[in-house]
Each structure stands twice: as structure tokens, then as C-alpha cells.
């Protein structure tokens, strides 16, 4: 393939046409991509777009696909040419078909709280589990990070080896590495923990961030997640970030360095709310703790009424 700047620029003019949802007509995984496309296998699908045109597109995941599966467009870095020119193009992300999601755990739900560090996820979660303990139960987060004082009982600490091994075995169904300047910390959720709560007839609640939320939605189906995004008060992103900074300093759990890391991650978290509005059922501004908790309690009670029978197994 010739990838001079001019030919790449001509290709990019076509990009807008590919920016549509569609369905998979056929798919393959190219095990040995051509020169310039890197070494790792690429999943490529022939997709019928909404306007009836057909395109070849890369998939954003290596997860098994199905013919007929719905996909949505996403911008991705495709490759870097010999001169170092980076080409971004539309790739397609599979949307878990409703049928498949419902089959996995029909009528079972997870309440997910997502938001930047310091927004009040843990506090709201504590209020939920104490106030509605007969309906909800908190799912512990598995983490490889070293325990420290001030940690609530929300974490279960395991070694890096154990984490990798359980992830490989398919027990950890949602995992993410949160960047920090000192160590690579892994966080994840274990399938058994979630399903054990369902068996008790309760609704699992999870405190997530963007990758964990996406993994959970991918595994259990988007419809199984009652997803609440928590935003700090503030009219602008800058105001929101300064509010977070204030809260993080006040809570006194983190070092100043760690707070800097958290604020940096918070920026991309806030962006995520805008980019992936489809992953949230409620976006709640946590200005008044009682009001925010109230909104979530309300959905929990409604869900409990719908799913009052524990799963027989």
C-alpha cells in the first residue's frame, strides 16, 4: 500500500462516510497483517452501514464476533507509517446483542457508580449498603496495589501473579490498570463475587471507572448494568476539577503526588462521560449527597421490585 501524505489525505476524505453504525456481514482475524500494520493479529469485518454502503473495518476488540452483530464507529489509531505519520481511522466496536446479554443472566442487574476520584463514589456506596442492606451488597474490588491505612473494606488485595492467573482463567471479568507514577496498579472484579450476590437475591453494587464499566457491560450486557455517572459540581471542567482537588485534599488519604495522578486521571474520566454517554443511565451531579444518594436508592428499589426472586441454581 502506498501511504504518502497525499494518498493518506485522500483516504481521510472518505472517513466521514464510514462514521456510522452498522451490522457485521462477515469477519476474519488476519494473523499476519501486511507491512506497516504491526505484528499483532487484527480482527477485520465487512460491515453493512446504516446507509446501505459496505465497508471493511477494524474491530476495536479481539472478542469473538457474530454475523449480524451491531457495531458502532469509534476513532482509533490505525498505524504509523515509515515516516512516523500516524493514521487515525474509524474502527468498529461490537455492541453486545440484547439476546446474548439477556441469556447470560436474564433479569439480573448490577448498579455501577462511575466517576473521577474524590467525587464521592465510595461515600454514596457506603450509604447505599448501610441504608439498603437487605437489597444491595457491595462487590469487593480485587487489587494488586499495596494496602494502606485509610482503605475502606472495599479492596481485596492480591498479588500480581494471582491477578494475571485469575484473569486468564476468566474469573476476573473486568480489569484495568490505573496509571500512577510509581507502580502499575491493577483493579478488577471477580465473576463469582457478583453472581454470589445475585444468588442471595440482592443487587451487586460496584464502584468502577471507565474500563471496568466497559468490561462489565461487555460481559453481562449493557442492559444488565444500571449505570450512574457521578460528576462533581461546577459549571466548567476546570471548576469541576478544582472541586475534586479540594475534596481529595480534605479527605487526607492521599499524598500530594498521588493527588496529582488522580486529578490527571479525572480529566479523562470527565471526557469519558461526554464521549460515552451511551454507557450511562443517570448522570448525577454530586452537589448534595443526600439528593444524589436518593436518586440511586430510588432506582435500586424499583429494580428490587422487578427482581425479587433469588436465582435458583
Amino acid at each position, binding site marked *: 500500500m502506498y501511504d504518502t501524505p497525499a494518498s493518506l489525505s485522500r483516504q481521510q476524505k472518505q472517513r466521514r462516510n464510514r462514521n456510522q453504525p452498522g451490522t457485521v456481514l462477515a*469477519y*476474519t482475524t*488476519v*494473523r*499476519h497483517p501486511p507491512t506497516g500494520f504491526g505484528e499483532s493479529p*487484527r480482527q477485520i469485518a465487512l460491515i453493512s452501514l446504516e446507509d446501505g454502503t*459496505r465497508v*471493511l473495518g*477494524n474491530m476495536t476488540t479481539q472478542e469473538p464476533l457474530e454475523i449480524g452483530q451491531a457495531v458502532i464507529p469509534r476513532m482509533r489509531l490505525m498505524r504509523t507509517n515509515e515516516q512516523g505519520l500516524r493514521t487515525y481511522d474509524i474502527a468498529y466496536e461490537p455492541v453486545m446483542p440484547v439476546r446474548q446479554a439477556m441469556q447470560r443472566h436474564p433479569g439480573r442487574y448490577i448498579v455501577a457508580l462511575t466517576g473521577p476520584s474524590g467525587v464521592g463514589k465510595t461515600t454514596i456506596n457506603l450509604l447505599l449498603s448501610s441504608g439498603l442492606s437487605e437489597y444491595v451488597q457491595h462487590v469487593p474490588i480485587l487489587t494488586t496495589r499495596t494496602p494502606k491505612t485509610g482503605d475502606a473494606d472495599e479492596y481485596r488485595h492480591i498479588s500480581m501473579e494471582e491477578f494475571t492467573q485469575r484473569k486468564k482463567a476468566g474469573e476476573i471479568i473486568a480489569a484495568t490498570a490505573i496509571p500512577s507514577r510509581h507502580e502499575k496498579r491493577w483493579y478488577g472484579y471477580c465473576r463469582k463475587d457478583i453472581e454470589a450476590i445475585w444468588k442471595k437475591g440482592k443487587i451487586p453494587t460496584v464502584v468502577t471507572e471507565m474500563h471496568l464499566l466497559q468490561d462489565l457491560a461487555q460481559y453481562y450486557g449493557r442492559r444488565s448494568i444500571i449505570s450512574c455517572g457521578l460528576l462533581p459540581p461546577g459549571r466548567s471542567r476546570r471548576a469541576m476539577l478544582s472541586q475534586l482537588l479540594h475534596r481529595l485534599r480534605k479527605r487526607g488519604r492521599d499524598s500530594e503526588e498521588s493527588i496529582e495522578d488522580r486529578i490527571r486521571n479525572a480529566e479523562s474520566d470527565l471526557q469519558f462521560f461526554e464521549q460515552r454517554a451511551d454507557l450511562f443511565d443517570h448522570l448525577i451531579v454530586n452537589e448534595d449527597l443526600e439528593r444524589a444518594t436518593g436518586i440511586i436508592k430510588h432506582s435500586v428499589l424499583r429494580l428490587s421490585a422487578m427482581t425479587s426472586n433469588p436465582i435458583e441454581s
Partner: protein
Amino acid sequence: MERDIFIIGSGQTPFGEWWDKGIRELADDAIEKALENAPCSAIDIDMVIVANMLAEHVSGQAHLGSMIASLLPHQPPAIRAEAACASGAVAMHTACSMLESGRARNILVVGVEKMTDADNSTITSALMGAADNDKDAPSGITFPGLFGLIASRYMHEYGLTREQLSCVSSLHHAQAMDNPNAQFRSPAMPDQVSASPLVADPLRLLDCSPISDGAAACILSTEHKSPLRLAASQITTDTTSITGRTNLTSFAATREAMEHALTEAAIERSDISTVELHDCFSIAAVISLEDLGFAEPGRGIELYQHPDPAFGINRSGGLKACGHPVGATGIKQVVEIGKQLLQSKKQWGLAQNFGGIGATCCIHIIENLSSTHSHV
């Protein structure tokens, strides 16, 4: 056909990895063999048509017409034909037109491809030239990838299983054992095919035709006669890009070329006793059998699971086991059909050669006038 065109001489190099031979040497070997059994001499050749796809990419050589013509003592007029993997058959078709028009009377058609000089990724990229550079290539798809898409769709529509598909390459390998010109003269059991490494899901290494060097040549004539007559030569095209197709499990170009070819030869499909078809990937052989009308849609695999001894499919080993030096393949198929007809004393044989994902399809029907059924 406006005139009777005869295949008066043919030959090929064994297909394989020819480290000590380049384009010139390979072509020279095939030409020598073709002239050996022809009723004319080199000097009688009044035109040369060369089929080749990759010489610029692999050997840095364009201008193959004059290069190959200079292998003959009198430097006859020469042109090159290129239509990706269908280059060979398109060169044959071009030769037919020249003979029919009367511009030439004895044409040497040479297909030659040198592939092993380039590394794998160069070859992979070069072969992608057979697809659409604007619509297909930017996704990072490869040719096995395009046929992987087709195979995944075919399996979805007709329920073809991995185990069934493995019968295709297995039969090709078994048949190549008897072909001294084949690249792989070793058996491949269906479970070996199923266990070979993945190339482009669901296609595995042993579903794919190899990278080969080789040449094939034949001399077509309206002046001299031979028992082998070209009864039909048809060419059709379809979209270069897979994104232009509405049907992934059938190639319209093959269906159309087949109808035209049967009409031109004035025969029925059932008169044909042997075919060499274009099995660049195992799934292509299954689809080709259906498009040629030898099997119902979705049932092409049955002819591989239960081969009919009276109906030859890729007796040479096909592209998979005999080898696939791209430009030579279409000519080798015709050479091979001629040989098979003379040996079996049967009357009709067919060669189907396509380029890209069936974007150019060329079909030749050959009649053996010395067969027991022939009235000439």
C-alpha cells in the same frame, strides 16, 4: 470462436521454489518444452503474449513483453497481460482475439511468476494489488483475509464445517502425488489441514495456495492443427472491492463466464469430464464448483467429500498442491487439461481462472478431437 484455434505445443516448469532461476530462466524452460512438441519452430512464432502479475514488486522488472520475446531468435512482437491471478487466462484470451482477427497465426503464450525472491510481507502487500487499494487495503486486510471473510460468511449461510472444508486441500494434495510438476507431492490428511496454523480465521495454512516460482507456455495456432482445439474463451469482470458485492458466497463473474463459454462451445455442462478450477483458497474451490453449476449452492463440498472418479476436479493438484505462480497458473491449467484429455481420451475439459475475489474470471473450454466421442 471466429476461427479454429489449436493448442499445438505446451509445456511447463515444475512449480516450486526455484532459487537458481529468475523470470528469464523460468520462461525459457517453459518455452523450450512447448516448442519441443510443437509442429512448428521458434521462428514461426509471430507474436508473444506474456502473463505476469508481480515482476515489478519482486524482481524490479517491467517490460516483460520485449524481455521474453528476446528469448526467441527473431524478436517477434510481444505484449504483456495482467489481471492479477487471472493474468494467465487473460493472456490466453488476448491470444485468441489476435488469432481470430488474423493479425497473428502462431502465438506463444507464456505465463511466468517469480515469487520466492521477496520476503513474505512484500509478497502479501503485492498480492493485495489484486484487491481495491482505496477501499480494501487501508483496513490492513490481506488476501487470505478477504477469503477468510468469504469463508466465514459461507459457513454462516450454509453451515459448512471446518472438518468438511479440510477435505478440499486433502484431495488436492492426494491428486498432486501423481503430478511430477507439483510443488507438494505429499499427502495432507483432513485433520492435518484442520490443525495447521491459522492464517485468517477460519482459514488455516493448508487452506491457502503457496508462494511459488514457475512458468507455463503454450503455442496457439490457426495455421497448424492438433488434436486439442480451444472451443471457448470467455472473460467477465466484477467489482474489484469486496465492499461492492451483494453476494459473498457466489461469484457472478464465474457464473456469467460459464454461461457464455457453454454457449460458445455449444455443449452442455454435463459433457465436461475434467476441470481445473481456481482454488487459491479451499473455500474458493467450493464456491467455484457451485458457480460453474456442477453443484447446487451450499453443496459444492460434497464433490470433495465423495469424489466422482468419472469427473476430474483439479487432477493436477490445483493451486493448493501443484503451486500457484500467479501469472503462470491460468496457462498451466490449459496445458494440464490438454494433457488430461489426451490421456483419458475424453472429449471436453474446462479451465477456470480468476483474479482477485472473482473480479476477473476467465474460462476456457478445450475439445479433444482425438477422443472416442469426437466426430471430426
